């Protein structure tokens, strides 16, 4: 595993510092990026030591997680309803499927027009991305519950409410959590795009700003930070899922 990273870093170093391949001309070598990243007094103003870095991270995290939370709060119940109740599904699913293909980013202009301020549009766009993925996977989760469980519940005299609470929700959980991981990943993707276009502060904005000021090490720092945050966020969701579904550990 270390070999892989080493090879990639070596290739990067080769292309930029040593061979100076033309296309890589503007890309800074890894050594420079790392030096800048960990310098107490960075040349371009952002490093592990500057509060600005953490301010950007905080904004991005706040937006991503807020949008994600909203998507879960709205998306999971909706997904369950659509998956479980056939009449409701017949009315609402076509509408959902019509709106879903519209890329989250395509909502940006509309979001800016509809919602006040700078934060809500970015959060809204991120929310859209996470929302549809959540709804879809939740409804898939409900539909993947083996019919026998429903039949057993009927024999056992469960009311509709009992079935919802004791069969549908727990039964759909595994799929829901897969959906949440996907939604979390999508949140970050949409968030960055939203920040690049409409935000002030945040990692997406940091990258775009660095780009316009030709501060390339900062761009790369931003990218890698995003990668780390995205990976960590998905892992967090996975962890929560594992804890909530102790029965799956066997």
């Amino acid at each position, binding site marked *: 595993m270390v070999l892989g990273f080493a090879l990639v870093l070596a290739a990067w170093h080769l292309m930029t510092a040593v061979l100076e391949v033309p296309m890589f001309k503007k890309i800074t070598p890894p050594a420079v990026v790392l030096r800048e990243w960990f310098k107490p007094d960075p040349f371009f103003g952002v490093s592990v030591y500057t509060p600005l870095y953490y301010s950007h991270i905080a904004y991005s995290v706040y937006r991503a997680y807020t949008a994600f939370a909203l998507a879960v709060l709205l998306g999971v119940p909706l997904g369950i309803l659509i998956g479980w109740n056939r009449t409701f599904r017949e009315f609402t699913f076509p509408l959902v499927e019509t709106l879903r293909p519209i890329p989250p980013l395509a909502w940006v202009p509309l979001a800016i027009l509809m919602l006040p301020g700078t934060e809500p549009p970015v959060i809204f766009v991120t929310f859209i991305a996470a929302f549809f993925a959540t709804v879809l996977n939740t409804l898939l989760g409900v539909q993947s519950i083996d019919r026998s469980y429903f039949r057993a519940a009927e024999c056992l005299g469960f009311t509709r409410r009992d079935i919802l609470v004791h069969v549908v929700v727990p039964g759909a959980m595994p799929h829901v959590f897969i959906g949440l991981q996907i939604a979390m990943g999508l949140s970050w993707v949409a968030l960055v795009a939203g920040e690049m276009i409409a935000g002030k502060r945040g990692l997406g904005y940091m990258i775009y700003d660095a780009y316009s000021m030709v501060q390339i090490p900062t*761009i790369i720092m931003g990218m890698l930070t995003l990668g780390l945050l995205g990976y960590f966020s998905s892992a967090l969701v996975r962890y929560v899922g594992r804890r909530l579904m102790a029965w799956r550990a066997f």
Partner: protein
Amino acid sequence: MRLAAWSRGLRRAATSAALWRGLAGIGLFLVVWEAASLVKLPFLRHVPAPHIVLQSVVETIQTSAYWSAVYISAKRVAMGYVIGVLLGVPIGLAFGVSRLFKDTFFPVFETLRPIPPLAWVPLSILFWPTMEMTVVSVIFLGSFFTVVINVLGGVETLDIRYVRAAVSMGATSWQVFWKVVVPATSPSIFIGAAIAMGLTWEIVVAAEMVSSIGSGQTGLGAMMWQAYVGGVIPLIITAMISIGLAGLLFSALIWQIGAYATRWRRVT
């Protein structure tokens, strides 16, 4: 023979309650939108009513600028997507088949994967000589990562018994790969391809919005952004619908190709 089944299906769909309910749901949405627009809710102050949007749609699809934008976006999507698939499938298969390859390069892959495609844009602009290549490369990244993950998943869930059966019949490694692994993984390959296609349209919009300056070629995303900047709001919605529709159609196309290529799957 196929036609009879189709017409039967059509007749069934036309009389199905589900279809009318679905249309009712969409219809209700449109009615509420129209009403809210008329009442001039603060929320929707700038959002035009459905009938205005409809007007805009009808007008726009008659302009050549629209279809040229569609073509440009579609071309970028197709190129980035195809390269993503062409590179993604072999690498996904390699990850699945070779322990060494996976151990070496998968961590790097997984580290780069969460980086949103759009975060690659500034770097790509610096890297690639032309803006077109930048947009296509960003699209490529989007489809590439998705395809690899899905193909890998397909290989890993492959029933080992198929491989063993082949080996016990005297197949060489290459034969096992081409005659067992690849066909068995093909459903996953096509699912990955369809998902990637949907994602690609989302990325093309973003990529075009960010890099629409200096590119000279106006795709749908750029058109939408220009409409926003120019304050022509019905056009924004027209563009949104177009992009959504395009994504849907392209994904459906991939699904169909996939369904046809894996028709051996029509079991039970």
